């Protein structure tokens, strides 16, 4: 039986490496593929944290649906390679410096100026994180947010269609109206 900490270290190395790969790839397709691997790694983290249902949702929704959408748009537009000429030459080093400062401060607060973190129990109660447990809480305590989410998704569908609708359809509509008027 491999201890949890070994699995954690291996998975975090993969997660950080793929995140870096996503940042540094010149080709947007490689970035997307790196991000898919990152999402799958996070899904294994969820399994490690006894959240089986969320882990599988992560794989299907994030690594599946969302990233396929990304890949579709990248290939549809043919924008996988962009010139890397920067109009603000000082902006990149400054961004690096600020990111390092943010990371150092965050790690300092988390590890050194730490509050008292409680110890997690080794075993969780039966069925924690199962679809049944998720469903029970979702449909009892969070029913209203669940219903509001459906409206949000509807708005997203309508918005996406409206934004990508070609302008030509609008012109046709006007022409049709004109021809109707002349008749």
């Amino acid at each position, binding site marked *: 039986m491999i201890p949890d900490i070994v699995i954690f270290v291996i998975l975090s190395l993969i997660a950080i490496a793929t995140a870096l790969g996503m940042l540094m790839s010149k080709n947007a397709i490689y970035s997307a593929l790196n991000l898919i691997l990152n999402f799958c790694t996070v899904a294994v983290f969820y399994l490690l944290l006894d959240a089986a249902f969320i882990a599988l949702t992560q794989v299907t929704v994030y690594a599946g649906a969302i990233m396929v*959408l990304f890949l579709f748009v990248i290939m549809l537009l043919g924008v996988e390679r962009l010139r890397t000429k920067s109009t603000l030459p000082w902006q990149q080093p400054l961004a690096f410096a600020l990111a390092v400062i943010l990371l150092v401060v965050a790690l300092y607060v988390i590890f050194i100026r730490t509050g008292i973190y409680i110890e997690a129990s080794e075993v969780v109660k039966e069925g924690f994180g199962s679809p049944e447990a998720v469903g029970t809480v979702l449909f009892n305590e969070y029913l209203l947010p669940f219903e509001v989410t459906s409206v949000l998704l509807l708005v997203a569908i309508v918005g996406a269609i409206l934004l990508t609708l070609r302008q030509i359809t609008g012109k046709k509509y006007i022409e049709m109206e004109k021809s109707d008027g002349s008749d």
Partner: protein
Amino acid sequence: MVPIEYYLGLSAVLFTLGALGVLIRRNAIIIFMSIELMLNSANLLFVAFARLYESMSGQIFVFFVMAVAAAEVAVGLALIVAIFRTKQSIDVDEINMLKG
């Protein structure tokens, strides 16, 4: 379970990488992916704390964050396609006018 500090540290690293991606890349799609990375690091912490306190609410929140992320990606990518149609580019340096 691995101590919660380690999850906090990993999440901080992933979040910083996402923020760095938003700052240094000029391709709008890569910027979008970096935002997804940041959302994901927050999700990881939600699940870690749900496990720590043995409460399901954290996992439900991750569920809602995923739904919002899916909606955001759909609308955001539609915006990128619309911008590409008018400007023939999705370099954020070139998108400097409010008018198309």
